[in-house]
């Protein structure tokens, strides 16, 4: 495009469009990625004002070092039993994902999303919070439900939209909801849960409760207006809320540069709003636990919100509808230097003499069996597309508390039409 430029002596402007470092065919090489050593980050007192530790929004809180030792001030010093529980929940989440992904491929449901490689982000956070704290997750935190002991069969019933589905087949698979488990109904629209979490937290504070809220979204979703509205409300009212940004570096085909990662970190978003920001190794379950525990303590002592960026990597496709080989280097998942959260915690426990390969293999086998058994049980209630699992008039229920005349009429009409048609 040519422009009649009155100031033609100035150099022409140019538009910067971000580009990821590796595309299909490229060899992924993260050797120049600066990974701060484990144990190096300072752990401020939870009463310290947020503007005293800006460096934590640019660094990386890490507990597990390369040899698998837990080091530094952020080590949450959990006992071996608690660590084994963490390991088990992560492994169960992975086993569940494997099985349900396969179920979708077998045509038993329409859709599935795995959280492979990101299990620590939900599992360790759920363990660091109180069981009755309220979670406003995105679609990739099934680990919270699993950690809190929500029945696998119920999750699968939802995935199959079958007769046992607690949501009556109304929602896309994996869009769970369980108030009892402190797990807010998942929306298909990104980042809407962020301000909702703030509202819940504000209400809890206004009522003199002791419970806090936490919310999760992907790094890509931080671009949505809801994210920024949430941070503004949270800082204004010092809401007792934990914001988790799961930076798995990809948003479908768009790398994190399209959410602003070329210029700064996601944790640094907190600084502009005057709230506490931490950047954490998201594949280090102990670091995620410690950061969440710290943020929860701040929230519970009226120090206000914390934003935690979990630096991790989306090891697999976005969903069953996605093939990442079309847009990123096939070698990326393996080249990613921060490893796998399950393997890292496992190595740590083995190093402590509290775990071994045989027990791990036995656990994996047992969890696979557990998931298989749950699946059998769930499939007794039907799978998607094989018959109508809910009476069709249930479609009209639950739009409002009481059904208005027009829905009643539409329901009656539908019944009459189907009868006339002989179905």
């Amino acid at each position, binding site marked *: 495009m040519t422009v009649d430029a009155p100031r033609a002596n100035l150099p022409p402007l140019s538009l910067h469009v971000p580009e990821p470092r590796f595309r299909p065919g490229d060899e992924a090489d993260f050797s120049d990625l600066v990974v701060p050593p484990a144990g190096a980050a300072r752990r401020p007192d939870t009463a310290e004002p947020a503007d005293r530790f800006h460096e934590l929004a640019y660094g990386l809180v890490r507990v597990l070092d390369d040899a698998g030792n837990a080091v530094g001030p952020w080590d949450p010093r959990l006992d071996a039993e608690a660590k084994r529980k963490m390991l088990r929940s992560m492994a169960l989440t992975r086993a569940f994902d494997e099985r349900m992904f396969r179920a979708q491929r077998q045509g038993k449901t329409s859709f599935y999303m795995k959280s492979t490689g990101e299990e620590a982000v939900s599992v360790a956070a759920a363990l660091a919070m109180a069981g009755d704290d309220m979670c406003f997750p995105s679609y990739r935190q099934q680990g919270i439900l699993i950690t809190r002991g929500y029945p696998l069969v119920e999750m699968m019933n939802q995935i199959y939209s079958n007769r046992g589905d607690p949501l009556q*087949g109304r*929602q*896309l698979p994996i869009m769970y909801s369980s108030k009892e488990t402190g797990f807010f109904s998942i929306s*298909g629209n990104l980042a809407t849960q962020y301000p909702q979490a703030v509202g819940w937290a504000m209400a809890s504070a206004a009522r003199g409760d002791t419970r806090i809220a936490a919310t999760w979204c992907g790094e890509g979703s931080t*671009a949505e207006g809801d994210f920024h509205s949430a941070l503004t409300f949270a800082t204004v009212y010092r809401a007792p809320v934990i914001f988790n940004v799961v930076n798995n570096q990809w948003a479908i085909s768009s790398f994190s540069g*399209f*959410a602003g990662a070329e210029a700064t970190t996601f944790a640094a978003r907190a600084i502009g709003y005057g709230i506490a920001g931490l950047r954490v190794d998201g594949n280090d379950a102990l670091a995620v636990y410690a950061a969440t525990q710290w943020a929860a303590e701040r929230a519970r002592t009226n120090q206000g919100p914390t934003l935690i960026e979990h630096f991790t990597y989306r090891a697999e496709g976005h969903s069953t509808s996605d093939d990442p080989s079309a847009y990123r280097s096939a070698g990326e998942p393996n080249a990613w230097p921060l490893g796998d959260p399950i393997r890292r915690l496992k190595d740590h426990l083995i190093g402590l003499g509290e775990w071994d390969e045989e027990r791990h293999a036995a656990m994996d086998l047992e969890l696979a069996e557990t998931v298989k058994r749950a699946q059998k049980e769930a499939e007794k209630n039907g799978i998607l597309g094989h018959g109508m699992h809910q009476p069709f008039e249930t479609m009209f229920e639950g739009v409002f508390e009481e059904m208005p005349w027009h829905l009643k009429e539409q329901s009656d009409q539908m019944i009459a*039409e189907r009868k006339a048609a002989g179905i």
Partner: protein
Amino acid sequence: MSAAPRMNMIQAINSAMDVMMERDDQVVVMGEDVGYFGGVFRATAGLQAKYGKTRAFDTPITEIGIIGVAIGMGAYGLRPVPEIQFADYIYPALDQLVSEAARLRYRSNGDFTAPITVRSPYGGGIFGGQTHSQSPEGIFTHVSGIKTVIPSTPYDAKGLLIAAIEDNDPVLFLEPKRIYNGPFDGHYDRPAKNWTAHPASEVPTGYYRVELGKAATVREGEAVTILCYGTMVHVVAATIEELGVDAEIIDLRTLVPLDIEAIEASVKKTGRCMIVHEATRTSGFGAELSALVQERCFYHLEAPIARVTGFDTPYPHSLEWAYFPGPVRIREALNKLLKD
């Protein structure tokens, strides 16, 4: 001249953008995943490789940002074609569309305009659940200042999209995703068809326009006029064929501005009118159509106007095929309408 190549709807839409980017270097395409990857439905595939990153680019995931930025680019003089990945995700962009794009020409007295074409896949039939299935056209037809276009074939999709991009007003271009790969007769339990056997899959590779504001008569008939658009054109046509009813099927193609003359002439001829859309019923576009027909054709009507629409519920996942206004519902409504 050799026959035009066969295209499915995605290829035709892709071709429209390709042709327009070639002809006019002010045309840019943008949206979530549209650049390198070429869109989650592949509608923009190849455009970045051909025209470069400053003309076909990925955007941050913020729909209000995408539309606001498109308006700003339009104010500079570009002709942006933003994509909203699913019509269900257009709601976060509502303020920029309704208060800004649709109002800019009027409030600045033509000083600024918003020559943007917002493309978005819409509609159900793919087991997409609540947030990958909705038909929000009625929200936008209700807003003065924005045109709404919905194609039903590859040929129309390309010609209408070219006309939309060339239009100096904001156009919402809704793409019925269920028929991206082939026409759909409403029988979800039968094997899916592709476009190859359909005459409107012959799509010229070059430039041509299908004018906005002009309906198409898909089938001429005497017994009843059926007004429809998008996926429902095919569901209606197949159902009529099965029933052997001599219906006149009008594919509206553009909802705003509406081809009122075509509607009026047809209803006055047949004396009966049925409206079919996937969108929910209350305040849906069918309500507007019904009012217009009643106002203009009242003395020609031999029966009350019938509407077959989505029910007034959120789009269900497992009960998709009970919800979808398919052949059974169209047939039952038609039997009643013809008896009256």
